[in-house]
């Protein structure tokens, strides 16, 4: 089993040599990248908005609960929510959710094309299918997912504001003071490094699972599940590594 998994790692790494090759037609690749950016970006905005607003709100409520009976000033709510979002939740939670939404979709789309002989048809036309089907998805992912993560940070903070200020848990002045306190610009860099790495992981791993699928609909379903599970595991592993290296 270990040998089999290592074989997949080797195949995955070598496959990158085929993905990043000169396109047959730049215009076609550009069009496909824009389509993918739209699908990933606009298609995921609602789910990112929803999870972010609730994570922000819950973080604020939980922190307020922990503050009860302590001498920690109230403006810390804004500060903690901001740093939680920037350092951890925006990038990690967003990408874990996107692995489920986009990752399974990519694996199913490419796997379906493999099963319906679309990939063979393109290969025979002379198309480098690894490049045409995968490269635009990876490029679109690494461009648009950091944008979604940025949106997530803002919505996280917005969620925390809605959960605290209108209900008198914190005043607006305190909340804004918290948001503006102890800001470390490097945390934003770490957030973008995470967003970039996680985007690469979830798009490439999912495409790999779809591209090399064999068998029928049961195998396609399994590949789709593996795309999500492996992406999530790798995101968490790299979350730890990035935290270790960059903080």
């Amino acid at each position: 089993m270990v040998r089999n998994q290592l074989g997949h790692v080797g195949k995955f790494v070598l496959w990158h040599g085929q993905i990043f090759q000169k396109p047959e037609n730049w215009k076609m690749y550009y069009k496909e990248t824009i389509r993918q950016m739209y699908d990933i970006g606009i298609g995921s905005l609602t789910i990112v908005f929803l999870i972010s607003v609730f994570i922000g709100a819950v973080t604020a409520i939980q922190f307020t609960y922990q503050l009860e009976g302590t001498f920690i000033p109230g403006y810390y709510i804004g500060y903690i929510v901001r740093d939680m979002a920037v350092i951890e939740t925006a990038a990690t939670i967003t990408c874990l959710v996107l692995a489920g939404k986009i990752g399974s979709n990519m694996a199913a789309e490419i796997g379906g094309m493999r099963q319906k002989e679309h990939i063979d048809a393109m290969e025979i036309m002379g198309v480098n299918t690894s490049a045409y089907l995968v490269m635009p998805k990876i490029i679109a992912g690494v461009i648009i997912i950091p944008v979604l993560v940025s949106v997530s940070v803002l919505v996280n903070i917005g969620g925390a504001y809605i959960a605290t200020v209108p209900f008198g848990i914190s005043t607006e002045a305190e909340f804004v003071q918290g948001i503006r306190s102890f800001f470390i610009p490097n945390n934003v860099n770490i957030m973008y490094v995470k967003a970039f790495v996680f985007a690469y992981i979830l798009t490439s791993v999912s495409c790999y699972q779809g591209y090399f699928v064999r068998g029928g609909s049961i195998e396609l379903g399994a590949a789709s599940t593996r795309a999500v599970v492996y992406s999530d595991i790798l995101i968490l592993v790299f979350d730890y590594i990035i935290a270790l290296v960059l903080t």
Partner: protein
Amino acid sequence: MIKIEGIYKSFEDLEVLKGIDFVFEPGKTNLIIGRSGAGKTVLLKILVGLFKPTKGAVLFGDTNFLNLDKKDVREIRMQMGMLFQGNALFDSMTIEENIRFPLDMFTNQTLAEKRKKVNYCLERVALEGINNKYPSEISGGMQKRVGIARAIVLEPKYLFCDEPNSGLDPKTAIKIDELIHDITVDNNITTVINTHDMNSVMEIGENICLLENGRLAWQGNKNEVLDSQNEILEKFIFASPFLQRLKSMALSKAK
């Protein structure tokens, strides 16, 4: 011309092809026939480069397809067109987009030029005016014809057809055979058809290769089929009692 020399292919312990030599001639409809499991599809996939043989050579003209690097393989592939058994039409694209796809990918023609070419190909397969339909909105026979239109849009030198008649009624199957034959002759294409349709064998079998258990069991053309004494060919072609009766009737008439 495509020439194959000593083609062997194994999948783990199972030897599917056992040393096949054959010449697929230009301007003719070359048929690969044989029972299910004889190795027809494997041979076709070796010809188009989807499978690599264990041993042997595939020559397109004088070039051994198997010794080429990826760039040169792609160049030869751009001279190929293929009709798949399941059509392999891109279901999220319209018919026009399907046929235009190779042009979009490999040419710098303007949209108007590409449309003209698409319309010509649709006209060639007698399907004018369905440009904006999706593959799911047309019949199986029409999908086959769209597959042919897509396969010929780049004016290939080689056309490969995997079971072009499967799932079609006899009348439509004959139309598809005639269409493939006409295109082959008009454009002087080397066409290779993988089939077990007897009608195709008798109508368009200009150069036939019969496979049996991974070996070349017989070669010839449609005119030689009836007179052949090859036992394997006889068992394959005249498998049903009805066809056996027809053969004996034809032979007695000839006498």
